[in-house]
C-alpha cells in the first residue's frame, strides 16, 4: 500500500509540474524551470507522506519514497532530454519543414549559430556573462561557476569539449 501512495504522489507531481511551468511562463515568474521541478517534487512528496500517514496504518516511508523518487527522476530525465538538446532541436527543425528536408549549409550557417546566440543570452540573463561593447566577459559569478565545473570535470576525468566521443 505504501508503494501505491508513493506512486499516487508521483502522478500528482506529473500533473503539478507542467501546470507550474505553464503558469510561470504565462505570468512571467522569475523562477527557472529546474527550480519549479524541485518545488513540485517537494510539495508532492510532502503530500504523499501526509496521505500515507493518514490512510495507511503501517506506512513504510522508504517504500513510498523509492517509487516516488524513481518516477520523479524518470520524469526529470525525460524533461532534461528534451529541454535544450541541440541534436533534438536540429531534428525538430528538419521534421517541421513542409518538405521535411533541410540543406546542411542552412543548419551549419543559420540554425546552430542561432542556438549558440540563444545560449549566450541564457548566460547573460543568468548573470554569468556580461556584454562589454561588442564582446563578452564572464562575471565573478560566472568565473566562480566555471571554476567549480572545471574542478568537477578534472575529478571525474571528463573532458572540456562537450563533444560526443563516438570511439567509446
Amino acid at each position, binding site marked *: 500500500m505504501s*508503494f501505491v501512495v508513493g506512486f499516487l504522489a508521483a502522478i500528482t507531481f*506529473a500533473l503539478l*509540474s507542467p501546470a507550474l511551468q505553464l503558469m510561470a511562463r504565462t505570468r512571467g515568474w522569475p523562477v527557472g*524551470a529546474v527550480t519549479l521541478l524541485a518545488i513540485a517534487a517537494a510539495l508532492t512528496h510532502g503530500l504523499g*507522506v501526509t496521505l*500515507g500517514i493518514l490512510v495507511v496504518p*503501517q506506512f*513504510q516511508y*522508504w517504500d513510498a*519514497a*523509492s517509487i516516488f*523518487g*524513481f518516477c*520523479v*527522476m524518470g520524469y*526529470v*530525465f*525525460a*524533461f532534461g*532530454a*528534451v*529541454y535544450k538538446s*541541440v*541534436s*533534438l532541436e*536540429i*531534428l*525538430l527543425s*528538419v*521534421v517541421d519543414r513542409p518538405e521535411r*528536408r*533541410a*540543406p*546542411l*549549409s542552412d*543548419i551549419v550557417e543559420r540554425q546552430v*549559430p542561432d*542556438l549558440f546566440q540563444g545560449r*549566450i543570452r541564457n*548566460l547573460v540573463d543568468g548573470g554569468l*556573462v556580461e556584454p*562589454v561593447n*561588442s*564582446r*563578452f566577459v564572464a562575471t565573478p559569478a*560566472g*568565473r566562480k561557476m*566555471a*571554476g567549480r*565545473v572545471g574542478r*568537477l570535470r578534472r575529478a*571525474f*576525468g*571528463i573532458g*572540456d*569539449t*562537450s*563533444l560526443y*566521443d563516438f570511439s*567509446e
Partner: protein
Amino acid sequence: MNMLPGPAQAAAIGLSAALPLLLLCYARIAATGGSGRRFRLGSVSILALYAIACLALPGERHFDDVLGGLFLLATAMMFCYILFSLLAWGFTLTLLTALVKAERPLNLEQWAVAYMQGGDLGSFTHNRLKLLVGAGMVIVADGKLAPTAKGVAIARLVKLVRLSTGLG
C-alpha cells in the same frame, strides 16, 4: 509510520551514496575508457554489489524491500547521470568554461573558436549530426538532411514529452 529502511533498501541507500565515489575512483584508472563508458561501468558495478548485498545480508529477503532498493538505486543512477551528462556534454556550461579559459573578452566569432578549441561551429554541428545519423534518425544525401521514419517518430515523441511536461 516506519521511517526505517529495510536491509536491502539500506544497502541501496549506501550504494547510491557510493556511486559518485566509485566514478571518482574509476576516473583514476585509464583502462575504464571515456566518460560514457565509465558511467556505464560504475552503474553495472553498483547493481552487482546490490545483488551481492541481497544474497549476503542475514535474514529473509522481502520482495517489497528488494523492489524498493532497486527503485532507490535506479533513482540515484538517473540523478548522477543527469549531473554527469551536464558536465560532459553540456553546451551552455562549456560555453561558459571556454570564455573563462580564454581570460579575455571575446566577440561571438572568437567565442565560437574558443568553444571549439580551434575548430568552428561547423565541426560542432557535424558532431551533433553524427549522433542523429548514428542513431538512424536522419540521413544526409546531396548536402541535405532528411529525417528517417524513426526520426519522425522520435520528433513526435519529443513534442509529446514537451507538451506533457509544460515546455510547450
